[in-house]
Structure formats: C-alpha cells, structure tokens
C-alpha cells in the first residue's frame, strides 16, 4: 500500500514537472502554433535565475519566493526578444521556426556554459521544504509537494487569464481567426507578444521549480523539451485541459513502468504508447483548430 501510494505520488510529481514545462508551450505552441525549441533553454534560464538570486539573497526561503516572479520575468523577456527579433518574421513557416529556435537553444546553452561554467550548480532548498510528510505511511518529499502546488497555481492562473479576462479572450480570438481579430480592432502583433511573454515566462517559473529537485546545468532544458512537446501534442494542440491530463497520465505511467522495469525500458514503453495513441487519435485527447498547425 505504501509502495503504491509512493509510486502514485512519484508519478503525480513527475507529471507536475511535465505540466509546468508544458504549460508555457501550450500557449506558444498550442495557441500560437510556434515550435519553440528554445523553450527548454528558457527553463534553464529560469533555473540559473534561481541560482543567481540565491547568491544575492542568502536566505533560501526568501530567495525561492523572489526567484519565482524574477524567473517569470527573465523567461518572458527572453521570449519577447526571440519573438520580436526572429519569430514574427516566420509565423507562416513552422519548419523554419523549428530550425531557428533550435539554433537559439544552442546559443543559449553555450552562453550559460560561458557564464556559469560547464559543471552543474546547486540551489539550496529552503529549510521548510526539507524532509517528508507521511501520506498513508508513504513518505512524500516536501519539495515535490511544493512543485505540485506551484504547477496547480500556475495552471489556475493561466486558466483564469485565458477564460476570464479580456486579454484571454483576445488571445483566443487571435488564434481562432486572425483576420477577423484584426478587423475587429485587435492588434494581433501586441497580442502575439503578450502571449509569447506569458508562455515563455511560465518556462522560467518551471526552471525555478526544477532547481528544487536536481542540479542546474547548461543542458537542463534538453531533458524537458521533448517531454513537454509530447504532453502538448498528446493532450491536443491548444487544449490546456488535454495538457493537464496528458502530463499527469504520462507522469504516472512513466513512474509505474520505471518501477516495474528499468528507467530506459520505462521510457521506451512510454514513447511506444504515445506513438500508438497518436496513431489512433492524431488530434490528441482534445482537439481545436489553430492557425498554422494541426
């Protein structure tokens, strides 16, 4: 019983990391149709932000709480620059976007290496996140619980913005019908920028979060980018509820497979499962028409 709960929670926890990494993508890839391979590097930037903030604020608790908004800002600004300098010229060319952002990802990785060095750095978790809580006899690490909560808060925030505010209506309007949005007086340029800022900012927050469960290196982003895209595609491009279900399903399945086999066999099983699923249901769990993909 404890084992089962422990595994379930490990899965949920993995799912929440995937969700954090994928939430931003569900905006930039899902809503806008931009394949941003540098999304993982925005996470990496967020992680290093946490590291830098902790160097200036030594209290681990305060630095974590400061890092989250600063990480959002850093990720968001990187996204804004990428959008303004490169992406806006290629909204109708998804393949070019893929190559360009892959190049940007490499540049960012090298930049991180030059600034922070190749070896990984560590961010201390605050004292109040060290240790475990017991859930029905199974030990649950507090850091993992924190990430789960953070991902749910980010999710709730994103849903409120998208569904409840004029900005969210605008973002959805621009996705649904660009010409009609423009002739209704909405600046699609401004909306694109804002959407990309928020999506990239969420990557930054995800980066801050993963410093709690592992060390931070220049190639941190590459660990997450593929899984994040898998979550968005399996969930149905442009569908946040799909991404949520996909993230937690993938997390739980992966931890179950890994437990009953090995880490690499588990990964293989997951990928096979996704390939089969997408063969049967190419549009993902839910589907929505977006402007340039799917």
């Amino acid at each position, binding site marked *: 019983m404890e084992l089962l709960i422990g595994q379930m929670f490990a899965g949920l926890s993995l799912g929440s990391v995937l969700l954090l990494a994928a939430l931003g993508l569900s905006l930039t890839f899902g809503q806008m149709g931009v394949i941003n391979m540098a999304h993982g590097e925005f996470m990496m930037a967020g992680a290093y932000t946490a590291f830098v903030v902790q160097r200036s604020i030594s209290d681990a608790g305060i630095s974590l709480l400061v890092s989250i908004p600063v990480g959002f800002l850093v990720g968001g600004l990187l996204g804004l620059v990428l959008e303004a300098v490169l992406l806006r010229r290629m909204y109708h060319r998804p393949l070019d976007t893929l190559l360009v952002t892959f190049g940007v990802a490499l540049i960012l990785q090298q930049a991180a290496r030059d600034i922070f060095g190749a070896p990984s750095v560590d961010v201390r978790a605050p004292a109040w996140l060290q240790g475990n809580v017991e859930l029905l006899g199974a030990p649950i690490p507090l850091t993992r619980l924190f990430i789960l909560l953070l991902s749910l808060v980010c999710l709730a925030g994103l849903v409120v913005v998208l569904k409840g505010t004029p900005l969210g*209506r605008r973002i959805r309007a621009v996705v*649904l*019908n660009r010409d009609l949005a*423009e002739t209704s007086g909405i*600046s699609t340029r401004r909306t694109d920028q804002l959407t990309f800022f928020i999506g990239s900012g969420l990557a930054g927050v995800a980066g801050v979060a993963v410093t709690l469960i592992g060390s931070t290196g220049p190639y941190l982003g590459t660990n997450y980018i593929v899984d994040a895209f898998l979550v968005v595609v399996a969930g149905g491009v442009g569908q946040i509820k799909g991404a949520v279900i996909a993230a937690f399903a993938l997390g739980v399945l992966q931890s179950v497979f890994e437990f009953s086999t090995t880490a690499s066999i588990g990964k293989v099983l997951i990928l096979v499962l996704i390939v089969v699923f997408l063969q049967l249901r190419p549009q993902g769990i839910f589907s*929505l028409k977006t402007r340039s993909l799917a």
Partner: protein
Amino acid sequence: MTTPTLLPDGEPRAGGLRHGRPKYLEVRGLTVAFDGFVAVDSVNLDVIQGDLRFLIGPNGAGKTTIIDAITGLVPATGSVNHTGTEILGRKVHKIARLGVGRTFQTASVFENLTVLQNLDIAAGPGRKARELLRRRKGVDPAVQEALEIIGLTRAADKQAGTLAHGQKQWLEIGMLLVQNSDVLLLDEPIAGMSQDERDETGQLLRRIAASRITLVIEHDMDFVREFATSVTVLAAGKVLSEGSVAQVQADKKVQEVYLGTAGMEGH
C-alpha cells in the same frame, strides 16, 4: 427596451444625409495587383453617410478585393479617405479603430467563444493594458442593445460556432454595431439565408444605413432592387456604372457585362 443609441431612426436615401455635414468614404485611384494581375484597377468610389450603397458585379470583378484593400488586408495603392483621414497604408487594427468595420464572405465569428464574448471583443478594441486583466461584471449596455437588435439575447451564452448560418451573419453585424464603426463594409450579408431572414436583414440594413456609411456586396438582384438606394457596378476591376438601380439597369455597358449571366434580370 433600452433607448436605441446604436440605431437612430431614419431612412437611407440616395445621396446620403440631407442635413449637416455627412461623413463620407472617398476612394480614389484604388489599385490592387497580385503578381502582375490587376484585380482592382484605379477605382473611384464615394459613399456618403445615410446612403445604402450596393456594390455588384460578376464573379471576379474585384468586389471583395476592394473591401480587403480598404480594410488593409491586402496592400493597395491610391487613396481611401474617411471623412478627412487617409486610411490607406495604416495597419489593419488601426483602420478598424478609425471606425471602418467589415464582415467576411464566409460568416466569420470567433467560433469557440460565446456570442457575448464575440460582442465583447468587438466592443473593446481600445482597452487599456491595465484593464485587460480585470474581470468585468455585467454587460455593456451597447452590447445588450446589439443583442436585442440582432435577436440573439437568448443565445448570448451559446458558442458562436453552434449558431445557425443566418444567426452568425447577424452576429457579425452586431459586432460591427458595438465596434462603433461608422463605415460598414458588408460582404454578402444575406448569402444562404431564407426569404424571411433576407427581408429582416434588409430592414436591418436600412436602419443601419440611415446613420452610417454603408457599402454592401450582393449578388441577389431582387434584394438589391428592394433595398439599395444607390448601386455601383464593378467589372474586371473597374467601375462600370453608378447610380440608382433603374439607372444602372438601363446602362448598355452593364447589360453587356451581364449578358448571358442570370444576374441583372433577376433569378
């Protein structure tokens, strides 16, 4: 009933408003070329506030392209002057905010948003950044009135994509009303409607046109005869004839262009 502010009483007439200084849309030398093919060839067109102008012509005459050019969706040369303000060359959303609204040939609404959300988007293009994140309570009176005018009050919370075709076209018109457009460019607003819906739409167009600059693209000559106060005939990208329905129907050049097509003499 709320007091009508979107649709003041009145009837459209040829030549536009009799009193005051009517607003106008003055198109001069408008030319659109796609890869060397001239779709719109130095078109001159004047539409005055209070006139219900129809734009007719055979398929491929460039009618929709003219509207695309005026609203900035396709690049064009020449001049489009809206009551003293040059609008050609501005960005699409800036032109919209200058009061130029349009509908699309295929009924275009934001399908996955509700009727109310569609109207709300149209009503608030100039919203300030800090208002964008605020959830608002209640319904804008203009939006409420538009819902009544287009008969969708009870469908306000339905997804726009689930509306009947005719209702979508009405929603498009409602969006233009709350958008506060004083220039309305309507691309086949009655396509696919039943006879009753056509009549209702025609009456609505008359009420709208009484106080606005209205240009309607339409194929159905019965509808044009019944509701137009003036007509411009376009063929092969050029203005062929202009005047009342009777005048353009008597025009030899127009008869030539329509010879062999079912257009001019009705269906």
